[in-house]
């Protein structure tokens, strides 16, 4: 409810970077062993499916999924669905992040906002926001807008929390220094607080983009006319599991591209951020 499935995503990405770094330090076993395990796993999967041990309709073989994927990318309807979901996620992400950033700044800069909003934020974080999907559908219809609102709602909170904690994270010494130089509140914000808060803010954007995707897909599950979520659902219910897996692969790739783009942006903007 708090962070939906995104921390897994973030954790996995962090852990992936660590593993790749170890790999760079010349530990070949790190490639070889996983490659062997993976090959064995795929081989067993292929065999289980093709030998009829598990019905091929229920568990399609990896080769079938691959050929479905090849078919899929040749259809324009598939690219249209991808485009719809991508738009929903990105617009939702931008809307959610901007709102969170403005509100977070108000909360961190003005004590009265801070006092009033803090407990509410915590309460909302624990509530299952994903359950609002049907409400948004009733309010905003079966088109893209209900998905955008869901995506924005889900990715709003992690950003808000990080903006607030980031802005409040400036050390008391540097604040005192700014004051002793006679800096105004605005100058303190622009020259000290904002730069200090950017690493935390950008870290939360990576969580937010993954959440926005999940929000869009779940809202599509509840009710939509087009999109990758609709496609997965239709294909699964028509027992086209292989095609359904193929769409899942595309969805994962889309998520990776978004995540990568956000990480690049982070590296460019907060270039001074120390690597762990």
């Amino acid at each position, binding site marked *: *409810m*708090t*962070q*939906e*499935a995104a921390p*897994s*995503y973030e954790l*996995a*990405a*962090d*852990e*992936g970077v660590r*593993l790749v770094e170890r790999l760079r330090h010349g530990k070949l076993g790190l490639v070889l*062993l*996983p490659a062997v*395990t*993976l090959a064995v*796993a795929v081989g067993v999967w292929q065999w289980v499916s093709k030998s009829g041990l598990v019905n091929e309709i*229920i568990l399609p073989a990896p080769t079938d999924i691959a050929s479905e994927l090849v078919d899929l990318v040749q259809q324009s309807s598939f690219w249209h669905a991808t485009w719809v979901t991508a738009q929903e996620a990105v617009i939702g992400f931008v809307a959610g992040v901007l709102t969170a950033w403005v509100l977070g700044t108000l909360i961190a800069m003005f004590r*009265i906002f801070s*006092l*009033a*909003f*803090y*407990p*509410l934020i*915590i309460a909302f974080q*624990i*509530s*299952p926001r*994903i*359950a609002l999907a*049907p*409400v948004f*559908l*009733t309010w905003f219809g079966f088109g893209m807008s209900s998905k955008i609102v869901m995506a924005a709602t889900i990715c709003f909170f*992690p950003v808000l*929390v990080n903006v*607030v*904690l980031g802005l409040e994270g400036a050390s008391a010494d540097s604040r005192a220094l700014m004051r002793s130089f006679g800096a105004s509140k605005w100058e303190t914000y622009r020259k000290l607080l904002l730069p200090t808060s950017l690493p935390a803010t950008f870290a939360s954007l990576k969580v937010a983009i*993954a959440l926005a995707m*999940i929000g869009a*897909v*779940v809202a599509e*599950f*509840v*009710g939509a006319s087009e999109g*990758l979520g609709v496609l*997965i*659902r239709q294909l699964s*219910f028509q*027992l086209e*599991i292989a095609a*359904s897996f193929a769409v*899942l692969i595309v*969805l994962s790739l889309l*998520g*990776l591209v978004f995540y990568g783009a956000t990480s690049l942006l982070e590296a460019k903007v907060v270039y001074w951020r*120390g690597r*762990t």
Partner: protein
Amino acid sequence: MTGRSLARERRSEAVEVLRARLRESDRVAVVFWPVVLVLLILGTWQWLSKSGIVDEVLLPAPTDVVDSLRRLGNTYFFWDAAWVTTQEALIGFVLGVFVGWALGTLIGMSRIAYRAFYPIIVATQLVPHTAFAPIFITWFGFGIASKYTLAAAICFFPVLINVVHGLETVNRDARALMRSLGASRWEEYRKLLFPASLPAIFAALKIAITFALVGAVVAEFVGADEGMAVLIKTFNFQLLVAEGFAVILALSVLGLVLYGVTVLLEARIVFWRQH
């Protein structure tokens, strides 16, 4: 930033700030302003709905939501739905935690398992799990099995990663001491590694329980005969938005209760953990 890749909650940092405030600054303001804000929001909402600026069907007044909740509380189907969703989340949680803990222990204890499985498991986490819901429903049907499977699939990874890190970060000197005393691998695990990794595991449990509920809810949205998410969906599609909100409210309470129980357990079992 050594603990960065541990599954910690950002929420807890916010809670700490709030706690510190309650201790130091004037408590009246800390309680007063949130109450004012809540009243302001509820008041505006009530007014918007009752004055007809927004259609009352689409945005029912808070008082109507409370009424609906009271009415729902007297029906059997509401409690049935609540029970179904609770079961799905809890079974999924137990399954996910067990799998995450078992795999995490295997990977944390054995170099070969770490190298062979860990990169692959990490890679599988880059798939948005919730998108698996329709496939799980095709596999396991419209009953609760597909719901707890999705819940388990979503909540096992934070546990796994915290177990792996928890085992990795155990003090090297302590391990050397155990070995120099001639402890077997099993003794080393039972007397040192397991207790030392418990705080990390419990931190993950709090995340896992919230994930489990999300998994149950999403799977119910995709296809189910009963459960709270089914109710939310049905009510909204019948334009009974007030009833829909009432169930969402109840679901939030359920989430809070499950979370609270996990926190209590943590305080009991890993009592030595610093705050």
